[in-house]
């Protein structure tokens, strides 16, 4: 075991820290769920990309720096400690890109990744449907062959920022006789395609952070398919057990929150809240160390597998607990808390998105512990 960083890693950390200190906007950007805020976040992403910092873990040829997992974790720690803006490109860079790198053709990678990293195209997800939420395999949106492409029909929902985004990716049923996980295909398409209607849905904070997407005979050319036809479920799930299990939420974000929480608790006279803040800090440390442990396992050739469900339950509930605590520490000032209140609203979504924590606990029980379905 070696918990020190190499001189090269320390130099990388110093470089990132110095760049962020110079470039992170002094005032928080407006919410990325608003049109104006979305545009400002897109600008920020271009600034990041210009410095080669938007996707440090990608191969250089597509706009990354070829950084390994440890470098990426260092970048994330510095990024969140600096109070830098949320990543409006995250659906593309952290969720689609690993899949694209694993399953995409060379042409697909060259077409999409450089535009994604420069935020020329911001991507939205199109997974859930009105009748397929936690039970994603119940999805009904269809894809039918048409000439040298496909026609998509159906409805997707809970798509974050799809009102402002440029492209979307998701699963469609391409085999009409199929059920559940079989007969699905993974598609990528522009949101300004003919037949696509995006309807905003206001979230808890009143901003149109969600959208429904309606597909009415939308034509997608053959190169809009990612991975094999009928292989969509496998393609969508494959990278969850590798690095993506780690990259959904890096420890840096929660370490930064925990450090700020300690600053709030330092001045509090409430021993119970002080102890809870100390506990939360320790939990953020546990998450960080666990991530380094997982990175070591991946480096030894192991797969994360269902362990990513343990991580998701832990970070989402830690994040929520920390924000609840911060609001408790702020007391009557909480409604004016700005950043903490925004963070609280965002943290509330954590146990819901990316597979609800109820689903994650089922996965832990069945696939980690081996209990029967």
């Amino acid at each position, binding site marked *: *075991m070696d918990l020190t960083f190499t001189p090269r890693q320390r130099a990388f950390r110093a470089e990132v820290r110095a760049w962020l200190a110079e470039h992170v906007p002094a005032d928080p950007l407006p919410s990325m769920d608003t049109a104006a805020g979305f545009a400002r976040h897109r600008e920020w992403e271009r600034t990041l990309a210009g410095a080669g910092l938007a996707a440090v873990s990608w191969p250089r040829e597509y706009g990354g720096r070829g950084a390994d997992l440890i470098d990426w974790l260092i970048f994330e720690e510095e990024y969140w400690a600096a109070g830098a803006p949320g990543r409006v490109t995250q659906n593309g860079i952290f969720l689609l890109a690993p899949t694209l790198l694993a399953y995409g053709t060379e042409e697909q990678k060259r077409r999409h990744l450089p535009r994604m990293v420069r935020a020329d195209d911001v991507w939205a997800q199109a997974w859930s449907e009105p009748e397929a939420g936690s039970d994603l395999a119940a999805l009904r949106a269809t894809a039918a062959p048409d000439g040298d492409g496909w026609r998509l029909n159906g409805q997707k929902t809970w798509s974050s920022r799809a009102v402002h985004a440029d492209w979307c990716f998701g699963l469609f049923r391409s085999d009409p006789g199929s059920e559940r996980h079989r007969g699905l295909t993974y598609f990528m398409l522009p949101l300004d395609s003919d037949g696509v209607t995006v309807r905003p849905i206001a979230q808890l904070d009143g901003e149109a952070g969600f959208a429904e997407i309606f597909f009415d005979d939308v034509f997608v050319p053959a190169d809009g398919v990612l991975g094999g036809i009928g292989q969509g479920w496998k393609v969508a799930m494959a990278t969850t057990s590798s690095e993506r299990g780690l990259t959904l939420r890096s420890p840096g974000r929660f*370490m930064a929150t925990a450090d700020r929480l300690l600053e709030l608790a330092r001045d509090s006279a409430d021993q119970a809240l002080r102890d809870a803040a100390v506990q939360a800090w320790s939990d953020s440390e546990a998450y960080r160390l666990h991530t380094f442990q997982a990175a070591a396992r991946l480096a030894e050739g192991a797969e994360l597998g269902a362990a990513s469900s343990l991580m998701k339950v832990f970070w989402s509930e830690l994040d929520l607990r920390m924000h609840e605590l911060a609001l408790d520490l702020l007391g009557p000032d909480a409604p004016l808390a700005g950043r903490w209140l925004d963070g609280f609203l965002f943290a509330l979504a954590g146990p819901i998105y990316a597979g609800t924590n109820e689903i994650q606990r089922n996965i832990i029980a069945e696939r980690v*512990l081996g209990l029967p379905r």
Partner: protein
Amino acid sequence: MRFSFTEDQRALAGAVREVLEKTCPPEAVRSGPRPGPGWRALAEVGLLGAHVPEQYGGLGLTPLDTVLAFEETGRCAVPGPLVETAVAAPLLVPAARLAEIAAGTLVVSVASPYLPDADLADLHVVGALVAPHGELDLTPHPSVDATRPLTAAPGDWTSPALDHAALATAAQLLGLGRRLQEEAVGYAGQRRQFGKVIGSFQAVKHQLADVAVALEFAAPLVYRAAYALAHDAPGAARDVSAAKLAASRAAHRAARTALQVHGAIGYTDELDLRLWLNRVWALRPAWGDDGLHRARLRAALLESPATARLP
């Protein structure tokens, strides 16, 4: 940055597990002699002398080398004052006695605050005071764990071995938690009600999933504390307290859940389950209860300038 153990460190833990599975089954914990054949076996695989310098017949290992092995000793609730003899005593007793520790012929009980297994110890240690058996005025103290009897001794127990012994105890709690999780999962996968195994019910599954989460995230804190102690890191005391608290909480959750999953049969002396339950409840207050470690963590994080998380 490489958060993993070496082959040697894993091999020691594997050897400990193997000999304890043979010498220390539940019936030996329940009614066998203390410290029993497991003690001799642990001397033979080198764990008793692991922290004794090589010149005294030990292995001269660090806490990082043995943390996985102590986890294994927790799994089987090994009888005898193991943490006290193998971890605390090498820091406390005169060098002339160290060879006996490594050989397994010297049993040491150390107060934290109560003395475990003082009846079978050759030496009793309270704070800096080291006394041969029979010299201190000991009074029996009630304990939840009949396989680890306690006695009270006068005097301040504050020990220079606190951090090292608290870490080893945290490792044992982690091992106990893992054992209780296995027992509960095993029972839930076999007990049938309403025509189904109870492990197929979500109410049961989710409790066990929470145990898995608690253990999964306690472990890295325990391993990091071992690393910090091995490297004499400035934050070592803070890290040990974070580790002991997390292991204590995770083991307690595992114990509560294992009992709940077993139902009434778990609440009896007929099942071996109680051996691990009682050991968890006995070790949680040993070498600093949650309150002591919480206070240390609070002092480190809120009442002094922040220490870096890692180098």
